[in-house]
């Protein structure tokens, strides 16, 4: 079972991101379970969402306490809460930022995780470029696919397509996701 925890702030589409990821996995005939950190959502407040992916039925209903991957939509959260709590030693950390890791003071965690498991991606820049609004979640999912290979890009693209009934917005998000996916692969190749 692969468990992903999303961190962001209300209004950034954190919950949507977890759901889209679960749909992507579903489209690959796998079981997936997405759920938010429940509560009355308020814009700007720290929000957590979860996604479990497995090849068999998922029965577990507890929150994800030891994630295999963390997707952080807002780096300022590192100052507010212990984002990395419970992250597995073999886990992945994907951060939305156009700054290098050391500027984010994440050196400690980088050391603890396997090489190449920690990555920043300028998801908001991609979002502004393709969508015109600071909604980094699609781009992050593209990047996640590239970083972990847990789901394929085409599944993510299809899931995004389902998630946005308006074709134009869907395509814009798909573009952002694809761009992020390519960017990560390029980085890895470098």
């Amino acid at each position, binding site marked *: 079972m692969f468990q992903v925890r999303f961190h962001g702030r209300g209004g950034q589409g954190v919950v949507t991101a*977890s*759901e889209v990821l*679960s*749909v992507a996995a*579903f*489209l690959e005939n796998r*079981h*997936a*379970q*997405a*759920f*938010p950190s*429940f*509560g*009355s959502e308020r814009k700007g407040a720290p929000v957590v969402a979860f996604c479990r992916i497995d090849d068999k039925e*998922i*029965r*577990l*209903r*507890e*929150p994800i*306490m030891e994630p295999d991957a963390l997707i952080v939509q807002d780096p300022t959260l590192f100052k507010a809460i212990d984002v990395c709590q419970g992250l597995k030693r073999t886990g992945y950390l994907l951060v939305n930022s156009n700054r290098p890791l050391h500027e984010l003071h994440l050196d400690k965690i980088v050391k603890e995780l396997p090489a190449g498991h920690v990555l920043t991606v300028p998801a908001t820049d991609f979002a502004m470029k393709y969508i015109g609004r600071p909604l980094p979640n699609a781009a992050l999912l593209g990047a996640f696919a590239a970083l972990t290979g847990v789901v394929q890009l085409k599944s993510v693209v299809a899931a995004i397509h389902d998630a946005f009934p308006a074709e134009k917005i869907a395509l814009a998000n798909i573009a952002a996701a694809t761009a992020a996916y390519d960017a990560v692969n390029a980085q890895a190749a470098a």
Partner: protein
Amino acid sequence: MLKQIEGSRAMAEAIGLCRPEVICAYPITPQTHIVEGLGEMVKSGELKGCEFINVESEFAALSVAIGASAAGARAYTATASQGLLYMAEAVYNASGLGLPIVMTVGNRAIGAPINIWNDHSDAMSMADAGWMQLFAETNQEAADLHIQAFKLAEELSMPIMVCVDGFILTHAVERVDIPSQEAVDAYLPSYDPVQVLDPTDPISIGAMVGPDAFTEVRFLQHYKQNLALRLIGDLAGEFKAQFGRDSGGLLRTYRADDAELLVVAMGSVNGTIKDVIDEMRADGIRIGLVTLVSFRPFPIEQLRKVLVGRKNVVVVEKSLAVGMGGQLALHVGLALRNVAGAPQVHSCVAGLGGRPITRPSLHKLFRRALVQPWEGTHFLDLNEEIIAKELHHVRKVRRSGPTAENILRRLSGSEPAHLPAAE
């Protein structure tokens, strides 16, 4: 058709397939997404021949359903928590009048302190109101139970609550198989009421009944619930034949055959417990599970059959009868009443107000049941330190302030304001 879908939406679609004729909606978290989904289906014309009414309170919601049902329409509504309490009077009335209304309860705690998260206090408060109560373990079962619920209610002319854990199920996106309209139509006949308000054949419904007949009326209600004990199983069987899925029934067991320790629980927590059981079985511990689906009627016989001969029974429940303990545990005890060599029953109250029930806690709990079984009610993951401080504080200071707020402050590290820190 398989869908990766939010639980609430899945339930809405299943309810829509049952062709309800009157739906009453009043918002309360966490049930809201269900009626939102239905409202959308009615407005879009996807759900035809259905009146969707936005009412001014839960009391009105169930009252409108009562009128609709008495006039021969298939009626549905949903609520939770305070909402269920607010409609309490109508809850008893609907069952007293024998109206087959189906109501989803998105299980949630009851205030004060106000709390929007999941537990079973709301359903428990209305357990004796004369309704059937079925608890769903998964969103698949939640969807399926609604389809069975309409058939159950209408065959017995008795209302029914489908209880689903708030947020944990209602807001979870997962795989659900939504049946086809044809299949549902084949399973669920159209509503044929045993009594109906009809100008061509008038009757008076809801007469005042005195001591001369009231006991009989109540007995007949009780008798009908006993009939439900058989029917619930039968309809689950028919359902499996039609849809090929195990959903509903009175109760289910998991790895129970040779178990010395049986866990009894209701709702979504059963999933987590199953994982824990697998892990413990891997360690060679003979533990199993009884998943109770039907809390009303309460399957005393069936439960006894399963429990008799075991050493220990741990009841994990998301409700507390303040001043008594765990209600489910009390009921389980009832199943073992006057049974020679009955197993020890250990009550555990867990997950109140949405507190996560985690595998580590359950491991500890079940192992403790084996090594040092307890009497009375155990509270899972109770923060003893905070309790001690608050009790001390209350003893010291007459005007000790609101307990809930004090505890929140302590959790955040700061002591209750305007007061010297305890010790």
